[in-house]
């Protein structure tokens, strides 16, 4: 018999509501799956057995009293460890925050709890979300459930690996340059980055504030949409929070794509994309056309500059965002004779090499005499990227591309060359610069048995059409909720 840990949100909710499944059973199955996989995956930095069990018991008791807490009642959810959780260690994957216990919950975490979710634990990530493989974690890398010698992607690699492995039904990730979509692609799950401002960033430990966005990682498109319905919403504690209407994101699921205009981004679906990825991508595009979509190729000339702009803007913002880690009020302190020396030593000891590199890169790009040439110019390129998107969306409803140019790569294969690692984000970065939504849906497997992801992008606040197309891609592909080999036995396949 299959484990409840492998159910979708929709299935689990039905079971919980109908009394066929208890929150406690579901949680224990999730813990069992974690026991089975964690030694190899290291998807989690912290598993909160005690509080999760208490929450599950409370959910069951509430239900026994006829109270259904919310749309995530009893659902085991994992949180990327760059979102603060009250009284639960939050490290952002950095040694500089080893042992740090925040006094408050991130708004997105509060939303999950209010909807009845059970917080399983905190997942591994590249330190401060800077990376594409989780190899930059200050606590050791995570592995890909499809092949544990390979990376799960990053920076939300722990969240993607946990959802793929079934040690969480749903997870939250954060996406600054692809950090939800790329690991989802590499782990064969759905990962969605909402429109900037849709999910409050309050309590998300900032990497690059104008690019960061929290979003769901799940095993189905419907689960992602359902989770977004819970975590999206205006938050008065975030001045960049969207102040308009928040629709029901599942409303157009199952409508098909007949008559929708789909644009294939020329610059992101040719040179530089691995042939196997490209072939799976093309098949998925064909299936959309078969479903009645009007497919065309669209050129966005600024795309090739987007990566360069990103690698100036994100480090610049991070250089300021990470200045608060100074050994004064919380986190690591390495002693020094003066406060200046203490801070300089603390930061040297607490930050890993990639974070140090990006802080210095950003500091340089903002420093006297260089601002206009680097940061200022990058912001103008950002404008051009937005204009390119705006123009493209005049002719199409959604844009599509592969999510990642390659499938999961070997652990350690790219760590020595930062630039080669950055190039992995080439397809996902433009949406972050434009603040527009994007989603990765698994569509195939390469020759090495590794998942391939398909990216759909939509205009700002275009989540409904985004999910509509994603659901069709999911339905039309032969993916069919395929699970990694390591959990197949437990999955009962």
């Amino acid at each position, binding site marked *: 018999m299959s484990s409840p840990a492998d159910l979708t949100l929709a299935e689990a909710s039905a079971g919980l509501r109908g009394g066929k499944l208890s929150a406690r059973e579901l949680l224990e199955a999730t813990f069992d799956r974690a026991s089975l996989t964690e030694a190899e995956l290291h998807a989690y930095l912290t598993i909160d057995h005690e509080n999760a069990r208490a929450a599950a018991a409370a959910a069951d008791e509430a239900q026994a009293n006829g109270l259904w807490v919310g749309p995530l009642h009893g659902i085991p959810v994992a949180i990327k460890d760059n979102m603060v959780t009250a009284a639960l260690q939050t490290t952002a994957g950095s040694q500089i925050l080893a042992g740090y216990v925040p*006094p408050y919950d991130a708004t997105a975490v509060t939303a999950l709890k209010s909807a009845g979710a059970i917080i399983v634990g905190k997942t591994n990530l590249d330190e401060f979300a800077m990376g594409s493989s989780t190899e930059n974690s200050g606590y050791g890398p995570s592995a890909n459930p499809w092949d544990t010698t390979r990376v799960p992607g990053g920076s939300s690699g722990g969240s993607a690996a946990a959802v793929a492995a079934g040690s969480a039904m749903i997870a939250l990730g954060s996406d600054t340059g692809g950090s939800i979509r790329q690991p989802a692609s590499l782990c064969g799950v759905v990962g969605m980055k909402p429109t900037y401002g849709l999910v409050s960033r309050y309590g998300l430990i900032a990497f690059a504030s104008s690019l960061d966005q929290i979003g769901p990682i799940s095993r189905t498109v419907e689960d992602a949409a359902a989770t977004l319905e819970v975590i999206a919403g205006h938050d008065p504690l975030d001045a960049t929070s969207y102040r308009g209407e928040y629709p029901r994101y599942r409303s157009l699921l199952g409508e098909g794509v007949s008559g929708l205009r789909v644009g294939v981004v020329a610059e992101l679906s040719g040179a530089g994309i691995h042939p196997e990825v490209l072939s799976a991508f093309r098949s998925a595009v064909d299936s959309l056309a078969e479903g009645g979509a009007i497919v065309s190729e669209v050129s966005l000339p600024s795309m090739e*500059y987007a990566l360069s702009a990103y*690698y100036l803007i994100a480090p610049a913002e991070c250089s300021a965002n990470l200045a608060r880690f100074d050994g*004064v009020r919380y986190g690591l302190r390495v002693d020094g004779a*003066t406060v200046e020396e203490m801070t300089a030593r603390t930061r040297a000891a607490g930050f890993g090499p990639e974070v140090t590199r990006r802080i210095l890169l950003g500091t340089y790009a903002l420093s006297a005499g260089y601002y206009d040439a680097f940061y200022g110019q990058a912001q103008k*390129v*950002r404008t051009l990227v937005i204009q390119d998107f705006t123009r493209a969306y005049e002719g199409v409803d959604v844009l599509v591309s592969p999510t990642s140019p390659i499938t999961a790569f070997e652990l350690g294969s790219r760590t020595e060359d930062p630039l080669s690692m*950055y190039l992995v984000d080439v397809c996902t970065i433009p949406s972050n610069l434009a603040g527009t939504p994007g989603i990765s849906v698994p569509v195939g497997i390469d020759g090495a048995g590794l998942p391939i992801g398909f990216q759909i992008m939509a205009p700002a606040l275009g989540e409904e059409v985004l999910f509509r197309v994603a659901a069709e891609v999911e339905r039309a592909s032969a993916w069919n909720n395929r699970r990694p080999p390591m959990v197949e036995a437990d999955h009962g396949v």
Partner: protein
Amino acid sequence: MGRRVCMESVRGAPTIGGMAIDIDIAYVARLARIDLSDEELERIGRQLGGILEHAALVQQLPTEGVEPTSHPLPMVNAFRPDRVVPPLERDTALTQAPQAEDGYFRVPPTLEAE
């Protein structure tokens, strides 16, 4: 002075490839307040040179008359009313402090006056 040379090369025509981007990495590390050894500085300086060469691509796009974007969506005037909300308990505020004393955060003496 090395930096002035660099600025000229940045403005000059060949903005990618072959461009020697000169970084006073020790100065940048002091600005960022990270205590790095000479060896580390040298290595990171080299890596940044490579990344910046790629990043300098941004200078190839003509951007005459293009406004910079610092915020992806057009929003203005997100304010809060002037209302007091209860602060943290002092013990909570201080509980994560590496060193605290008499209700204060404690640090080594400072070199610089503000």
